[in-house]
C-alpha cells in the first residue's frame, strides 16, 4: 500500500450527494456543461470529475472497466479499491461503469453492456475524459431533456464518434450512456439523445 492514498471526498455524504445531483442534472439536460462544485482529492490519472463520479456512484455492486492505462496504474487501483470496493473487470460487457482517461482509446460502444429489451437499465455508463467540451456549438442534440435543440461539442473524440453515438441511439431503449469529463467540468449524452452533425 502506498503511503500517498488520496482521500477522495472530505465529507463523503454531502459531496456524494452534490456530485450525484450534478450528474443527474447533466443526464436530464443532455449536452449542458456542469461544473463539479466540490473538491476532490483524486489520483492524477483520473479527471477530478471522473474520480467524483466513481466515488459517488460505484460500490461493490458495480463492476468497473478501466482503460488499459488506468488498469495498469497501481494508484488508480488502490484508490478505487479503498474508496469504492468496486470489482475491476476486464469484460466490458459486464461493466456498470467504464472509465477512459485523456488520451485513452474509446472502445466500440457496443462492446459494453447494452442492457436487454426487457431490462435496458442493465447497461454501462461510460465516463470519458476529454481536453475540451463546450455547449452552444458543434453537434446538434435533440430528444428528451433538450428544449428544442441544443449544441454540444467535445474533443478529442474518435473520428467516427458521431456515427457511434447515432448507432447507440438507434438501439434505444438499449445502449450506453456517455459522461464526458474535462477537469472539473462534465456533460452527458444519454442513449435517448439524437446527435446530428
Amino acid at each position, binding site marked *: 500500500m502506498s503511503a500517498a492514498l488520496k482521500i477522495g471526498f472530505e465529507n*463523503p455524504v454531502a459531496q456524494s*450527494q452534490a456530485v450525484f445531483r450534478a450528474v443527474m442534472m447533466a443526464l436530464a439536460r443532455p449536452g449542458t456543461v456542469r461544473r463539479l462544485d466540490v473538491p476532490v482529492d483524486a489520483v492524477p490519472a483520473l479527471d477530478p470529475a471522473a474520480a467524483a463520479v466513481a466515488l459517488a456512484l460505484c460500490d461493490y455492486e458495480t463492476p468497473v472497466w478501466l482503460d488499459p492505462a488506468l488498469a495498469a496504474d497501481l494508484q488508480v487501483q488502490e484508490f478505487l479499491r479503498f474508496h469504492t470496493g468496486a470489482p475491476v473487470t476486464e469484460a466490458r460487457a459486464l461493466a456498470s461503469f467504464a472509465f477512459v482517461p485523456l488520451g485513452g482509446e474509446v472502445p466500440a460502444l457496443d462492446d459494453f453492456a447494452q442492457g436487454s*429489451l426487457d431490462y435496458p437499465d442493465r447497461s454501462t455508463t461510460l465516463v470519458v475524459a476529454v481536453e475540451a467540451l463546450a455547449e452552444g456549438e458543434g453537434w446538434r442534440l435533440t430528444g428528451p431533456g433538450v*428544449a428544442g435543440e441544443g449544441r454540444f461539442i467535445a474533443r478529442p473524440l474518435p473520428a467516427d464518434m458521431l456515427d457511434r453515438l447515432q448507432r447507440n441511439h438507434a438501439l*434505444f431503449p438499449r445502449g450506453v450512456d456517455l459522461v464526458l469529463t474535462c477537469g472539473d467540468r462534465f456533460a452527458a449524452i444519454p442513449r435517448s439523445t439524437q446527435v446530428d452533425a
Partner: protein
Amino acid sequence: MNAPLTSGYNFAYLDEQTKRMIRRAILKAIAIPGYQVPFASREMPMPYGWGTGGVQVTAAVLGADDTLKVIDQGSDDTTNAVSIRKFFEKTAGVATTTVTSEATVIQTRHRIPETPLKEDQILVYQVPIPEPLRFLEPRETETRTMHALEEYGLMHVKLYEDIARHGHIATTYAYPVKVAGRYLMDPSPTPRFDNPKMHQSPALQLFGAGREKRIYAVPPYTDVVSLDFEDHPFEVNKFDKPCALCGAEGVYLDEVILDDRGGRMFVCSDTDHCETRRADGNRGEMSPDSSENRP
C-alpha cells in the same frame, strides 16, 4: 432551518450504499424515459401506501441546501404531507416550505402544483402501482415483454371499451401516457387534469414505487402524450364553477360536503395556490372574507 440530528441517523435516513443504489437507478431511469427501473426498495419507518417509494427517491436526491415541499392531493396540510415533511426536517434538517415557487424538491402524492414548475425543480411522485398494464395483464413477465416489444394495443382496447360503454373515455385518474414516443407510463394516480402539465415540463419528474420496487423518470422538456383516438381526443376534466374560496378558474377542484342536506362547495385542491390567490385579494363566492358573505 432545523438543527439536523447529529447522531442516530445518516443524513436523510438512508445509508450511503442504499442511496448509491437508488441514485444509479435514477440515472438509468432518466436515460430511458418512462421505463421502470427495478430497485432494491428498503423498508421505511412508515407503511407502504404512505409514499415509501417517493420518500426513498427524495432521500437519495436531497441535499442540505434544498428546500422541500410535500403535498398530498395538492394539500400541504394533510397527515401524509405533514408526516413526510417532518420526517425530512428531522432526519435531514432541510428547510421546508409550502410555497411551490420556493421549493427545489417537491414530493407529491397524486397532484401536480398549479403554479408552473421551473427548471432545476424536481418533482418526486409517490406511486402505488407503477405498471400501467397491470390491471390488464397481471403477469410481470408478460407486461415486461409488452414494454420490450412496445406492444400497447391492449391499453387502446381498454380506452375503446370506455368509449363503447360510456360514450367517452371514462378514465379520470392514472390516465396512461406515452413518454418520448416510446414507453407507456402510469403518471401515478394524478387526475387526468394534470396530464398536460407533464408534457415538456421544465422540471425533472421522478417517480418512486416502494412496494412495487420501481423507479422511473421523465426528464425536463420531454414529450408526454396522453393516449387517445382521433375521433375521441384527450380532454381534461372541466368544472362548472370557479373555486368557491379564491375564484380561480382552470384549476383542479375538490368537492367539500358541507352538511347532510346536499350542501357542497368546490375549492382548489392545491392549497398553496388557493392561499396565494386569496392573499392577493382574490375572492370566491363562498369566501368567508368576501363582502357578500359578511353578516
